[in-house]
Every structure is written in structure tokens, then in C-alpha cells.
């Protein structure tokens, strides 16, 4: 028995990969979404958008691309849906060259679905926040018009009546970033300087260090990875891709937990076997 269990410690890792792929493939056929309870991070994010009164526009920085699509696309889609439902005008901007390539087709689809019109309900100014981020975001907080220059259609933002008076960080109702990690410069140049609230959607890997900012109130809300996307989607009464994604995530996590337990049992058995052989 011990010998059999000891084999678990030396299991070829490729079996684990195969098992993980199998679990993910099977989970893709399960259509029933997992029900989740909204965490305080998601609630803060949801409430910040819910509180908007439409008097000032929202700044939405969308930086997700092929590397973060799994976690961030659902966050982005649900944020845009929420803004559209609230009839809240917003400006899309990006801090990565690939960002607009990913959000533009998504925006066309969502605008069509909600009957929203480019230029009237939202505009996109594309990739205008290159590295180093602190310098770009400071420039954005000082002068939106000079930082954006032109939108996707080559028009100056000031040509849109609802953006004519948007100049500094004071003129935004809310700043949102959907990025692999948070962009803390928004705390300095938007929240601290102008009291413009800041919320963010981030990958789970970057979330741990952000909780102190959430507790101190400098970040009003946060969507953490695919869990945040699923919670937010359900908070808006939908059960779509983001909620279904949680089934795959949970199944994968369960398998990893099982593998950890099996590996530990294997190591334990290996140790016992070595001891008993030493006694002989």
C-alpha cells in the first residue's frame, strides 16, 4: 500500500496537465453558472458606478489584451453595460498599444446591443497613455484635451459638446482602470488632488497588495480577476460568460487542491517507506 502511495510523489507532471485540460474542457459544457455572493471589493465598484448622476463624464482606461483577456474582458464588458444602463457618458482611453485593438470590436457590439451612439454616449481616444505611466497620467490630469488630441475618428474631444469643458482631473465623475495591475497614479493625480473617485478592475495576481488602498478608501472599489467579473455580472442580474467562467475556475482549483493533497500523501508515504527500509 505504502509503495503505491509513494508513487504519487513521483507522478509525471504531464498527467496533471492532462487532467487540468480535461477538467476545463468538461466544464465548458456545463451551462449552469455558479452563484456567488458579492464581496465588499465588488460592492464598492458597483456602488461607485451606481452613484453616478450623469452630470460629468467617466474616464475608462482599458488596457486588457490577449494576455489578460480571461480575467479582464468580463470586467470590461460588464462595466460598459453598467455605464450604458445608467445612461452615463464616458471616454475610453488606453495605456497599451494593443488595448484599443481589443476593446473597439467589443464596443461596437455592446453599443449596438444597447442602442448607443458613438460621439453622443461615448468616445474612444485610443492609445494615449504610454510609459512611463506617472508622467502620462499627470499629463492627463492636467489637460485631457492636450493628452487625447484626437479621437478614433480624428476629431478633437472639444468638438463634442459634452466634452468641451472637460480639461483637468476635476472634470471627471469617476476614473476607472481595467488593467493587469492597478495604476496608483490615479490615486495621486485624480483622487488626492481632485477628489475624483477611482475604482479598478485588475488581475487576481495583482490584487493582494491593493487591499490596504481599499481599506483606506483611496480606491473605492475593485474587481478581482474572474471572480470579480462573475460577481459584478450577477450583481447586475445577468448570468452569462463571466458567471459560467467561474465553473471552469472552480473545477481547476479543485483539481489543483486534490493534486496538492495527493502529492503530500505521496511524500508522506515515501518518507515512511524510507524509514521502514532503514530499520530493516
Amino acid at each position: 500500500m505504502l509503495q503505491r502511495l509513494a508513487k504519487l510523489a513521483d507522478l509525471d507532471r504531464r498527467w496533471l496537465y492532462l487532467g487540468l485540460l480535461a477538467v476545463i474542457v468538461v466544464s465548458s459544457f456545463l451551462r449552469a453558472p455558479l452563484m456567488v455572493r458579492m464581496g465588499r471589493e465588488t460592492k464598492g465598484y458597483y456602488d461607485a458606478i451606481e452613484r453616478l448622476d450623469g452630470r460629468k463624464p467617466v474616464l475608462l482606461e482599458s488596457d486588457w489584451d490577449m494576455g489578460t483577456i480571461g480575467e479582464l474582458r468580463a470586467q470590461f464588458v460588464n462595466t460598459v453595460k453598467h455605464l450604458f444602463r445608467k445612461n452615463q457618458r464616458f471616454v475610453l482611453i488606453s495605456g497599451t498599444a494593443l488595448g484599443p485593438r481589443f476593446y473597439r470590436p467589443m464596443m461596437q457590439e455592446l453599443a449596438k446591443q444597447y442602442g448607443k451612439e458613438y460621439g453622443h454616449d461615448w468616445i474612444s481616444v485610443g492609445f494615449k497613455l504610454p510609459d512611463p505611466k506617472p508622467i502620462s497620467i499627470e499629463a492627463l490630469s492636467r489637460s485631457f484635451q492636450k493628452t487625447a488630441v484626437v479621437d478614433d475618428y480624428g476629431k478633437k474631444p472639444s468638438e463634442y459638446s459634452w466634452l468641451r469643458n472637460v480639461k483637468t482631473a476635476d472634470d471627471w465623475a469617476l476614473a476607472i482602470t481595467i488593467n493587469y495591475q492597478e495604476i496608483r497614479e490615479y490615486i495621486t493625480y485624480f483622487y488626492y488632488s481632485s477628489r475624483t473617485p477611482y475604482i479598478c478592475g485588475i488581475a487576481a495576481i495583482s490584487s493582494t497588495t491593493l487591499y490596504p488602498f481599499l481599506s483606506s478608501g483611496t480606491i473605492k472599489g475593485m474587481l478581482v480577476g474572474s471572480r470579480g467579473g462573475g460577481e459584478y455580472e450577477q450583481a447586475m442580474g445577468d448570468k452569462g460568460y463571466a458567471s459560467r467562467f467561474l465553473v471552469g475556475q472552480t473545477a481547476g482549483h479543485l483539481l489543483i487542491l486534490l493534486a496538492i493533497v495527493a502529492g503530500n500523501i505521496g511524500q508522506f508515504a515515501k518518507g515512511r517507506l524510507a524509514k521502514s527500509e532503514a530499520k530493516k
Partner: protein
Amino acid sequence: MTFDRVGEWIAAFCVLAILSLLWKENRLYRIAEHLLLGLTVGFTAAATWVELLQPRWLAPWREAIGSGDIGGIIFGGSALALGLCWYGLYFKKGEWLMRLVLGVVLGAGAGQALRNNFTQQMPIVATSFKSPIVIQEGARFDLWGSINNSLFLVALISVLVYFFFIFEQRSPIMRGVSRMGRFWLMVGFGVYFGNTIMTRLSVLIERVWFVVDDFFGKMFS
């Protein structure tokens, strides 16, 4: 077959080629890896020119040249000269040019970091001063709030003690508190690692679902 469908075929091939590394190192994986890197670099360069440099630098500079705006011409020319200084890196004699602009960027970065640290970290320090006894409105004792705050304070103090290197921790009390600090740090690292797994798994799930749903799903439907 539409153009989109061809794109999906290429995408599915690349996903499977990249995942083939899980079996073992192979040429198919290398091809897909180089394709991804080449496309990303090429696309980033093109997008930087079209979306950033063209509207924010070239167009205003050309406009300034056209209208004879001396200020605009000097501004655009200086930006070009400073930008070109970065390429001094590739010439031994011109390396100082790169250091010149690097100095400007580092100086600006250091100045901003000072302000950023103050504005970002100070509110966190201020909210760390929590009372272990939480009294809500109407003089009602909040048990869970008190437990939360007490745990927070224990973790905060013990971790601070762990990083107390001024003198040797000989006292058993100090050593015990320090060990507790290490425990809390381990909890933090565990959370960090758990979140890392969550992110990596999300990337895998999205791609596998793409192959299963969008690619094979459409093929067999």
C-alpha cells in the same frame, strides 16, 4: 470560408502549438512563440506610430511648419532631437546622449515617486491606527469589528517586530512575537500565490474554451 474563420483556424493552431510545450519542447511551440513575439512587436510599433506619435507629435509639428509658428517648430524639433538621443546607446561615442535623456526621465520619475509615496502610503498609515474595541452608533459594541481590528493590530505589530533588526532578539517574548510575524507573512504569501494560480488558470481556461467552443464548436455545429 470567411476571413474571420481563417483567423480562428490560425488562432486555434497557435493555441495548440503553444500548449504542446506541456508535452515537451518542440519546433511547433518555437514557431508559435516567435510568431507571437514578432506580431506583438510589429503591431506595437505600428500602433505607437499611428495612435501616438502621428497625432501628438508629427501632425502638430507639420502644422507649425506650415503656419510658420516658430514656437511649435522648436518644440517639435526638440522632441525629435531628445527622442533620437535614446539611440546614442548603440554608439560608444554617443552613449552620453542617452544618459542625458535618461537623467531627465529619472529625475522626473524620482520627483513623482516622492509625491506618489506620500499621497498613496500616508492614508494607509493613517487607517492602520485602529481601535481594538469598536463601538457603533448608539453605544452598541461591535463584536466582529473588534475581533477584526484586534487581529489586524496583532498582525501589524508582530510583522513590524519581525523586521526589527536594530538589536538581536534575545528575549523569548520578542522571539515569540517575531515568529508570529513570520506566520502572518506566510499567510500573506499564501494568498499571493493563490491569486497567482487563479490568474494563470484564467488564461488557460479562456484559451481552452476558445478552442472547444469557438473553434471545434463551430466546426461540428
